[in-house]
């Protein structure tokens, strides 16, 4: 599966969920979504998107929160799997896009390539639902059910490079954060 294919499937099934992205995913997701409920976290500190999603999920229990993390980013902060499982937000779904490389730095392999299993780690951390997808049709078929589960949910999705130049345009995070807060609360910070 390529990342652009995975993102198109996610965009097809997404409705009113908050979607958080980072790294190469944040540079490609805007091609498929321009929602006020998107937060493309560029420059917020690599590895910490799931924690941000945990805070949003706790703050907004009536809205699903989808976190689109990378495998290199996940490796930087594995402890957060335990923090999320401990807090157990029913509305959080954490996806790890697995390309097994640090794409934005030139394609160096991540540690544990071909050995580490993120879904197994999430299960061991206490996530009640874990999935792995390496087939696009299976993802397309299963995604509606996954979006309806009581979480927290974890899913690894194979996501090779889309093979296209990535956009570097993004709303500055200060403005992006205030825009999302305004959308969610109606308050002008």
């Amino acid at each position, binding site marked *: 599966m390529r990342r652009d294919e995975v993102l198109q499937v996610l965009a097809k099934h997404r409705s009113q969920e908050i979607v958080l992205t980072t790294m190469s995913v944040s540079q490609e997701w805007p091609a498929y979504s321009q929602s006020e409920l998107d937060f493309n976290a560029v420059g917020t500190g690599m590895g910490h998107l799931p924690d941000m999603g945990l805070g949003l999920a706790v703050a907004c229990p009536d809205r699903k929160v989808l976190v689109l993390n990378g495998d290199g980013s996940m490796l930087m902060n594995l402890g957060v799997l335990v923090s999320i499982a401990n807090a157990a937000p029913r509305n959080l779904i954490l996806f790890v896009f697995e390309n097994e490389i640090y794409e934005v730095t030139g394609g160096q392999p991540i540690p544990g390539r071909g050995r580490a299993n993120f879904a197994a780690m999430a299960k061991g951390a206490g996530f009640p639902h874990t999935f792995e997808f390496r087939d696009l049709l299976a993802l397309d078929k299963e995604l509606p059910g996954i979006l309806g589960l009581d979480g927290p949910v974890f899913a690894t999705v194979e996501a090779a490079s889309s093979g296209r130049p990535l956009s570097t345009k993004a709303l500055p*995070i200060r403005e992006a954060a205030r825009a999302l807060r305004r959308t969610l609360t109606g308050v002008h910070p």
Partner: protein
Amino acid sequence: MPVHAVTVIARRGGMAVLTPKTIIEQLKQCGITHVVWLPDSESKFMYDALQAEKDLGFIPVCREGEAFAVASGLWMGGKTPVVLIQNTGLFESGDVLRGTALGLELPLLMMIGYRGYMEMKAGKQPFDTAAVYTEPILNAWGIPFHHIETDADTPKIAAAFKQAQEISRPVAALICVEYNG
């Protein structure tokens, strides 16, 4: 007429002390909704008292850096978090503090356990170098800070919160004493 909270100063053996009740009163006064924390020697005395507070959400994390990202998410969702960690964890949190609390310009109250402060203040050799680097690093990040040593200082917690709202940046309340039972 405005109502002003009166801080009753607790004493032990004639010495003014810092008690969890007065700190929690300050957090409530600020309208704090969630405490994001990792236990440390300077704040462990608050653990039981915080757990008993039904009005406060309580989110433990595995590493201090997570606390700033969790707080960012809570704030975007309309909540009012406080981060409660030790100065050693603050050092570990450098990049995520830069990317979230400072990058998003969060009006965030940080309560930081100041390991080694009392020894340093008394001119003794601190246990380690944590105290030595705390204030220089906060200054480097442009984060204002206030010392909390006894119950008499706890109004500074609400003042720090108010300052964070006014300047739309994180402000630190440094918990300077270690609990001795």
